């Protein structure tokens, strides 16, 4: 049935493609006009990228650009006569990833505004071409095709949800379109994708999980009960963590797998063994607050140590009613939501540019909590694309292979305004970045970083060498 539907859609798709190509090829096309606008705007001290959210980035991006204003000036004349570099942004506008998509877009807009304020890439302005992937793998693949064939993008970038990445990557390979993903999935480093797919701006889940084990074993306890949703996402945590904690002399004494459609959890808590020292939980979905609330009711004030992944509460206010029980518990954070006492200037500048306050929420609406633990990946990836293009003196689609090689050759990525989350090491063979992870404790209804893992804590044996694959 599905196959029939797909076949029927193809002629329509071709028609859309024809119409769109016709329009976008014309000089009157919006995107080209936007590119011209951008080129003009490079002369100005502030730069507005696309709208969607109207972002007056002058404050943040301007501050970041200040240091490099002179090189920018030198590139102006060149920029005015240059076509923009187009980065196709595969965005979860609709579907189950939309909450992430909104913040990924906001962060990417800010990153591009900053890059343009600094003179663009190789003297050319940068333009984001946003397509909605519907958080759907088939649509994701279609979107990549649009980037390559209709809007003439130089590279594709952006998406989070793993099934979309996995569904899209083969198309990127076929089209020979560099595809920079920000998904955290282990699928890039596992070798299941291809040479055109890279994840240089965010660490993968395997690395994150194994980096947690030493802290848990050394500080919280050695007897761990894991509570996880009973599907692949939860199984990854189960497998990676139980192996890693064993290496540190600990053990997982009980694994409680919860069906994904469950909305009440009281019957599972009695399965937690009495000798449990630490509970490791990674629940996600609409029932996550119910889970926390019911766990609180079950334990009362006499709870074991509790460790979770912030994915459960990403974009959710830690002060929400029902979450009082989390006081004193620990979370992995990809990037600390609350500005810390030892906040770097990089994080400060980054927050300012994206419009996020010290509590990790929007400056225009403090109740709008960002996806702070993940969205830095967009910012950093765009800066890596910039650096890669500058290294290989990228001129156009003919230089795509050179761009991949330039990124593969990267290793150290020191903490900077380009990398506000912290220093990273990039492994060109596995196309995967490794970095610091943050462990925060909820104290006085804030997430306070109590431990930063060394980069090496997230290393694992290489499973692939993409550099040996032909282009």
């Amino acid at each position, binding site marked *: 049935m*599905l196959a029939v*539907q797909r076949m029927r*859609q193809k002629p329509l798709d071709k028609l*859309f493609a024809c*119409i769109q190509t016709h329009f976008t090829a014309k000089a009157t*096309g*919006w995107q080209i*006009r936007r590119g011209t606008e951008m080129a003009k705007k490079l002369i100005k001290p502030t*730069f507005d*990228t696309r*709208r*969607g959210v*109207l*972002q007056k980035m002058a404050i943040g991006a301007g501050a970041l650009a200040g240091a490099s204003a002179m090189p920018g000036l030198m590139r102006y004349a060149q920029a005015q006569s240059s076509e923009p570099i187009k980065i196709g942004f595969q*965005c979860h*506008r*609709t579907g*189950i990833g939309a*909450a992430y998509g*909104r913040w990924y877009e*906001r962060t990417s807009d800010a990153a591009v505004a900053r890059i343009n304020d600094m003179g663009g890439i190789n003297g050319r302005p940068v333009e984001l071409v946003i*397509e*909605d992937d*519907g958080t*759907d*793998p*088939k*649509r994701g693949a279609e979107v990549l095709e*649009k980037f390559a064939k209709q809007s003439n993008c130089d590279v594709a970038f952006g998406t*989070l949800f*793993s*099934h*979309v990445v996995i569904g899209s990557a083969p198309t990127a390979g076929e089209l020979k379109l560099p595809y920079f993903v920000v998904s955290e999935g282990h699928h890039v480093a596992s070798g299941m994708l291809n040479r055109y797919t890279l994840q240089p701006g965010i660490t993968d*889940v395997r690395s994150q999980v194994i980096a947690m084990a030493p802290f848990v074993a050394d500080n919280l306890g050695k007897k761990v009960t894991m509570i996880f*949703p009973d*599907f*692949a*996402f939860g*199984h990854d945590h189960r497998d990676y963590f139980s192996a890693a904690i064993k290496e540190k002399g600990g053990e997982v004494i009980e694994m409680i797998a919860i*069906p*994904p*459609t*469950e*909305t*009440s959890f009281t019957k599972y808590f009695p399965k937690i063994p009495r000798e449990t020292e630490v509970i490791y939980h990674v629940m*996600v*979905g*609409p029932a996550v*607050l119910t889970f926390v609330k019911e766990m609180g009711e079950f334990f009362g004030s006499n709870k074991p140590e509790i460790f979770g992944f912030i*994915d459960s509460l990403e*974009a*959710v206010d830690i002060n*929400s*009613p*029902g979450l009082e029980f989390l006081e004193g518990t620990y979370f992995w954070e990809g990037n600390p939501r609350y500005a810390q006492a030892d906040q770097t200037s990089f994080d400060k500048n980054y927050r300012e540019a994206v419009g996020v306050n010290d509590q990790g929420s*929007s400056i*225009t609406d*403090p*109740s*709008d909590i960002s996806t702070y633990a993940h969205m830095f990946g967009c910012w950093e990836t765009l800066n890596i694309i910039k650096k890669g293009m500058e290294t290989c003196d990228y001129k156009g689609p003919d230089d795509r292979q050179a761009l991949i090689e330039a990124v593969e050759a990267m290793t150290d990525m020191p903490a900077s305004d380009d990398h506000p989350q912290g220093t990273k090491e990039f492994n060109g063979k596995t196309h995967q970045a490794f970095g610091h992870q943050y462990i925060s404790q909820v104290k006085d209804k804030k997430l306070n970083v109590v431990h930063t893992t060394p980069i090496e804590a997230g290393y694992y044996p290489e499973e692939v060498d993409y550099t040996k694959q032909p282009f």
Partner: protein
Amino acid sequence: MRCLMRTMHKSFPGDKFDKCHTDRKIGARLFALIAFVIAGRHEAFAHTSEQVFVLLLPTQIYMMSGVAAVALTVVVLAFLPADAIRSSFRNTGVHTPRSGQLATVTSLLSFLVLVLLIIVGLAGPRDPFSNGLVLVVWTLWWMVFLTLQGLFGDLWRFINPWAGLGQIVAGESGFLRLPEPVGKWPAIFGFFLFSAFMLADIAPDDPARLAFAVTAYSLYTLLGMVLFGTGTWLARGECFTVLLRSFAMLSAVRAKDGRLQLGLPGWQIVTDRNPGVTTGIFALLILAVGSFDGLNETFWWLAKLGINPLEFPGRSAVIGANIAGLAASMILVPALFAAVIAIGEKLARSTVPFPLAFSRFALAVLPITLGYHIAHYLTSFLVNGQYALAAATDPFANGSDYLGLGTFYVTTGFFNTLSSVHTIWVTQASAVVIGHILAIYVSHAVALDLYKDHRKAMLSQIPSALFMIAYTTFGLWLLASPRGA
């Protein structure tokens, strides 16, 4: 349709999952939801990023009073004096200038706007939330305008983009005659195609795809008007005009034949003595599509399809299922309603012809449809409306700020605070419950008008009142259900 802010999590492809365990909690939340309106309780937290707080709502105790209150409306209606019900739907009117020519002019302007929007769809920003066509069609028109039409009457005749053109190009008489027995079946066919595009297409938000669909439908409409005459095609073949005219019947006001008439909302339904069977079917189909629109996102539905809602694979994986579900809903709802009316007729030992009873009572369901429409789209509107605002202030995506909004970020923070969430919930639940009460009231008035005898009317209403209670409960269940698609 698409609900934009979904629960947040990463997803990895993997295993299927176990059996659904949601029913008990959903029932509890449903009770709580009703309780918000009926009992005015403030304990419930409701949802953040649309869903997370939903499942924290308090339980059972409030639901009993909620459902009891709904049931009570039926009892009260049964004992209300017939004359009181009849007189409440009387209308009064004043003479006003006819607006026929004005409507033709505004309709032509509307057509020009539509052409511009199609160009924007094809050549404008590829981001659906920045594209004027997508925002106008799905947010301003489908979410908002349908509601305005239901509240304020037939505004559509002024902005219908095809009517004016039809008057000029096709006139009132076409080349062919659309036989009377065909009724509104062409509109029903069109509405099915539209619903399938909205609910089953992989990307109805894609600007170019939408532009193509709007163009194709416009050409189809023009062809229909040329073949069968403008008035005939708009009244029976053009599904949006049929849909919007149905919604307009809910309004307190109606401008017709140089008179502006005013009455209790629903009076137009009560006084329409022979709407026609296909008009009744169409009214029920709007409800059916709205219901499936909500149902197809629930954990319950996804579980039936064997899909893990926490890693929903995307619309491309459910195209067939959505078309099948949509078609089944569009058959089941009218069939069920027909059975309900037939039973009511039997109970009342009625001599009223069944088609007449069916069509008149079917229109009485419209308040439930509008109530659910408002409730269903409220949260999406709160987010998408901001994107529309951002697009309006910067229509050419060049950084302008014509509306002077200054620094403007789209927010969903109102899903995160108790007071705003409370307001959202009360609004949603109120829309559903008010729609329900009005539907029962209108239906009863129609029964009195049909059967004349109060006892007969009351007996005939027992099955349809049960149907409405069941449907309202279903509507509240949909709002309170965890969603994954």
